[in-house]
């Protein structure tokens, strides 16, 4: 192969690889990108049952219940307008408490309950998750 042609072939190969990667990335993103929900989005939108999503808001004061097995908790998450019941099995993060911000990762059940397999708590005043801050802004409930 002449050097010119080889350069062209390499360039084509690179373009194909990049386009392929971009297509793969796009299809992956369409399937897998999990949306961030605030409780009022949930009530308004159709429930994304069975898909990995994130739910963010404040833990409602007085809503925290410990199940008998000692490792399952139930609580309600609010954005100031609507609330969603959440169940979590595991060790809750240290800063998880009633009246504090939380982002739950997990899936919605068909009955509207959110089953979380991971909880992210607000670290301290300086570490407000931006997603949560945004969700709070939307409902005008910023402290």
């Amino acid at each position, binding site marked *: 192969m002449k050097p010119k042609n080889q350069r062209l072939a390499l360039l084509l190969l690179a373009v194909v690889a990049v386009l392929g990667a971009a297509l793969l990335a796009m299809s992956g993103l369409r399937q897998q990108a999990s949306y961030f929900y605030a409780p009022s989005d949930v009530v308004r939108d159709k429930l994304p049952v069975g898909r990995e999503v994130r739910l963010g808001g404040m833990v409602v004061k007085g809503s925290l219940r410990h199940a008998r097995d000692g490792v399952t908790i139930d609580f309600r998450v609010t954005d100031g307008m609507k609330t969603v019941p959440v169940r979590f099995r595991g*060790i809750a993060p240290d800063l998880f408490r009633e009246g504090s911000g939380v982002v739950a990762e997990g899936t919605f059940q068909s009955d509207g309950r959110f089953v979380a397999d991971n909880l992210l708590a607000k670290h301290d005043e300086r570490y407000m998750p931006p997603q949560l801050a945004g969700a709070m802004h939307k409902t005008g409930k910023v402290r």
Partner: protein
Amino acid sequence: MIAEAGLAALWLAAALALLQLGLGALALRGHAALGPAVRPVAVVQGALVALAFALLILVFLRSDMSVALVVENSHSAKPWLYKFAGTWGNHEGSMLMWVTILGLGGAAVALLERRLDQRTAIATLAAQAAIGLGFYAFLLFASNPFARISPAPADGHGLNPLLQDPGLAFHPPTLYLGYVGLSIAFSYAVGALITGQVGPTLARAMRPWVLGAWILLTLGITAGSYWAYYELGWGGWWFWDPVENASLMPWLAATALLHSVTVLATRAALRAWTVMLAVVAFSMSMIGTFLVRSGILTSVHAFAVDPRRGSFILVLLAIYIGGALALFALRASSVREGAPFEPVSREGALVINNLLFSAILGIVLTGTLYPLAVETMTGEKLSVGAPYFDATAGPLALALVVVMAAGPLLRWRRDELKALAVRLAIPAAVAIVAIAVVFLLLPVAGVLPRLGLIFAAGIAIASVAPLAGRNLRRTPLHIWGMVIAHFGIAVSLAGMASESAFTRETLVAARPGETLAVGPWSVRFVGVEPVAGPNWTAIRAKLEARRGDTLLTLAPEARMFNAPPTETTESAIATRPTGQLYTVLGKSDGDGRWQLRLWWKPMVTLIWAGGALVAIGGALALLGRLRRERRREAM
């Protein structure tokens, strides 16, 4: 006085960077007499910025509460190690560390570079000074680390407890050295583009720096992964967190660059591509810094949420990346055509390696930036997590390790597929045996872990195959380096696959005296006791783990830090030759029961052992290359 002296040193260093850039530009534009002044200026600049950084460390060690940065991030009761490492456990300090390494890198180039022609060396140092100037401006105008506070408070706010870990002393400096090491490759590429000297000499001059940066990035990522594993207490070793991706992306680009630089040095091919990769690699370092430091991500790495700082870094990024790409577009036509080569050859395999690395880089970059872009444009919030990255980057990574197995067995210039098939026969046979074992013994594991185990077995054999038929005592060090690094990838892959296929978990609330089972272990929960450290108090659980005749004691803790008041969980991990027992203490239910989470993770340590092997391989290769250069110079 110390803080003022530090600030003065920083201003002087910035002025010298400007001088270095100006002298370099003039020297290249015909005032050749100014050329010899560039190197000394670069050395003095490096010394001054290092002095500024040393003075900031001193301010932290002395707990000088009249300096705002110390007040916000330190506390006089902290152990000295965290006062020291706390210097870079905050935004301003870490940015000062970044420019210090940038300045010292320039000084090192000025002192050590002897291969390049005079003009290209000057252009390289001018480019390094141009990068430095932007970050000096950022420090001096937007994040002055030496700012005083008046009146001085009695004591500071303390350091985020998650950062109060010996890892803080090593992890950021290692990663920064890697990031900023890539700036040197970037400057070489820009310098060579300016003078039109893109060729094997450039590749040989650039290679040690790329190798060095790559070794440190490898170590930094490996250490960061282990840190997240034991400190977060979640049992995972990689979360596809944007902050992790920020360190992975420069590594992917640097790995591609490392391989293409070899093609350029050996075969004078891939000229423009190598220069492009050098630009991309440092761009990824800067994008990583921007993501991590701008505060648009929430993590232990995001120190301060100040939008102005984010925009400042974004502008710097646009200038450097845009400028380098524009220079590339202008000068690419001056880069000579590379030597042609056959598709079935070592260089052919390295081209596929480069394409796959670039594709993975593109996928990780897209997945990391897409949520930010969508949020900026539509306000809609979404997060991209492990499912996306596993499904897209996973298969490409497996394809990459196949190329990795085959590539080193191919000859340079031209080879035959049949000959390659013969050389790959034994590794393939091992992989087939592994297929049988994996499918017979593991009916429940997922697809990726199974493929991982099979591939690990095959490439472990293939990676040592280049040594077959060689006199081992006469095999050059850089070949040993390649073999060990590739074998390390196989080891790491085996660990990852094993961790996700065989991990056993137990999560319960237990009373003291109860015995729990996890995998092959029976674990007795002896009880809890209160303990106190220098600046924290804790509840410590005592666990006795038994398996056959082996008896281990583990003591996971739930800690309460005083300043700032924060709780953290300290996992307790017992390492055995066959795996790790990982235990976490949760909360009390107020009724005598304690939450306990136990994991048995067979062979999980191989993940980081593999990473260490990759770095050791890189170090051997670096040593071998440097020794060979010295011998060539002597002759």
